[in-house]
């Protein structure tokens, strides 16, 4: 049992900076679970090591890489400061439970959509996050009967111009209104293809 608690404490020192700071501040009283005295000494020793911070940097890099590589449009739209703030909040609420990119990125999209429903206001974010989530969802590995036939994303602004500006590294400006729908499908080779429709009906 103590091995389990010890490993949980070491892992938490790496992934949870608030816990690490609490251990630094109040010592062993911050530790949970049953630890032997040598395990307590070891936790108290590594919490002061610079190597713990280096390990945390690697952990952050592991998580950041997943989001950076899979959500380029969301990343560009949010910009570095807002992105860092939202990722920080996401990580506080959601520990990493997988080394797979898509699951983590889809969870981050869901987190942002929840933030939007709670009052976060960033123009175009709802459409961009919904589009990138749908794109990832189509690429996500599944058991055969569960493979989605398509994903539908509604836009109120021209997605072509919006995407173009974001891909060029610009913050969207003067994107014209355009009520339309993007429909994504997966072909037999597993490739995702999107097409634009001016229709907005569910029966596309």
């Amino acid at each position: 049992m103590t091995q389990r608690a010890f490993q949980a404490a070491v892992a938490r020192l790496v992934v949870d900076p608030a816990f690490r700071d609490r251990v630094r501040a109040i010592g062993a009283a911050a530790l949970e679970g049953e630890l032997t005295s040598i395990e307590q000494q070891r936790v108290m020793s590594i919490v002061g090591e610079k190597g713990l911070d280096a390990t945390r940097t690697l952990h952050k890099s592991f998580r950041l890489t997943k989001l950076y590589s899979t959500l380029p449009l969301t990343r560009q739209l949010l910009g570095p400061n807002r992105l860092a703030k939202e990722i920080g909040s996401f990580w506080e609420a959601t520990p990493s439970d997988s080394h797979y990119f898509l699951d983590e990125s889809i969870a981050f999209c869901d987190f942002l959509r929840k933030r939007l429903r709670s009052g976060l206001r960033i123009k175009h974010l709802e459409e961009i996050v919904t589009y990138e989530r749908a794109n990832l969802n189509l690429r996500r590995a599944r058991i055969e009967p569960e493979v989605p036939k398509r994903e539908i994303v509604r836009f109120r602004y021209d997605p072509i111009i919006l995407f173009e500006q974001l891909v060029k590294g610009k913050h969207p400006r003067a994107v014209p209104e355009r009520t339309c729908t993007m429909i994504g499908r997966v072909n037999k080779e597993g490739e995702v293809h999107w097409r634009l429709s001016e229709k907005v009906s569910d029966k596309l």
Partner: protein
Amino acid sequence: MSAQVVIEGNQPPFAPRLGVGLLYQEELRPFIECQKSSFDFLEVIPDLFWTDLGPNQSPRYIENRQAMEILRQLQADVPIVLHSIGLSIGSAHRFDREHVSQIARWYERMKFPWHSDHLAFIVAAHGAGEVNVGVTLPLPYDEESLDLLVPRVSEIGSRIPRPFLLENNVYFFKYPDQELTEAAFLNQLCERSGCYLLLDLHNLYTNSRNHAADSYVFLNELNLSNVVEIHIAGGLQHDGFYQDAHSGISPDGVWELLEWVLPRCPNLGGVVFELLGSWYVDVGEDRLIAQLSRIKEMWLRHQPASQQG
């Protein structure tokens, strides 16, 4: 049909001398397809060929059909060994038997000459669930850790009839008052469990640089007859630490370690160069070929006399 491997009688059960290996990365595929003569075998990370939906899911592992087809084509040309990242063999809260079963299924299909994973814990209990740190966290070099690992390694050995190797870990912090040195711990682990070693010389170099230790003290204490595979790689200095980033060519210190170790590993099956695919554009084809050629030259120079010619 897969590439043939030669089995030598005086090696660990079924561990052939393969030669120079390259870690497969998708970004390296054009290189691998065009430069097949520059390496003798490939090492693949099987976890990148499937998606793991998590413990107790059924089915849990969904294989990427396109990636599997690529793997099938590669295996027709060169031997392939597995180097997994998903077992987290040191996790105290659970032993992932489903992962072992998945590797065993791949063995039935691929008949790989050996397979390996990392001597570390990556997944730990976290509240009511668990957390995947994404970093190989060190186990204390204590009897208690041996008690955890030995039956697990033995179980893997009983399920997959090929040598199972564990890789010496890279770590950025050290636990005080450990009962054994790292080398003594590895010797004990191999002796008691029947596993072999994947000696990562770049990990050793990284640890020695970051903790001001002498790599040769470690190597002199280590039972090198347990080493079946060696890794070399390059890294970078960041934030006060040298990082095992697999980001470039191997530094001189790693080549010196390889030169020292090669004639002392009687059961060595191969030396693998690891390069993260995203760094290939910086390293380039010529320098990658040069790394592999240099390993080849050293490999051939240190083969037992009976193997030369």
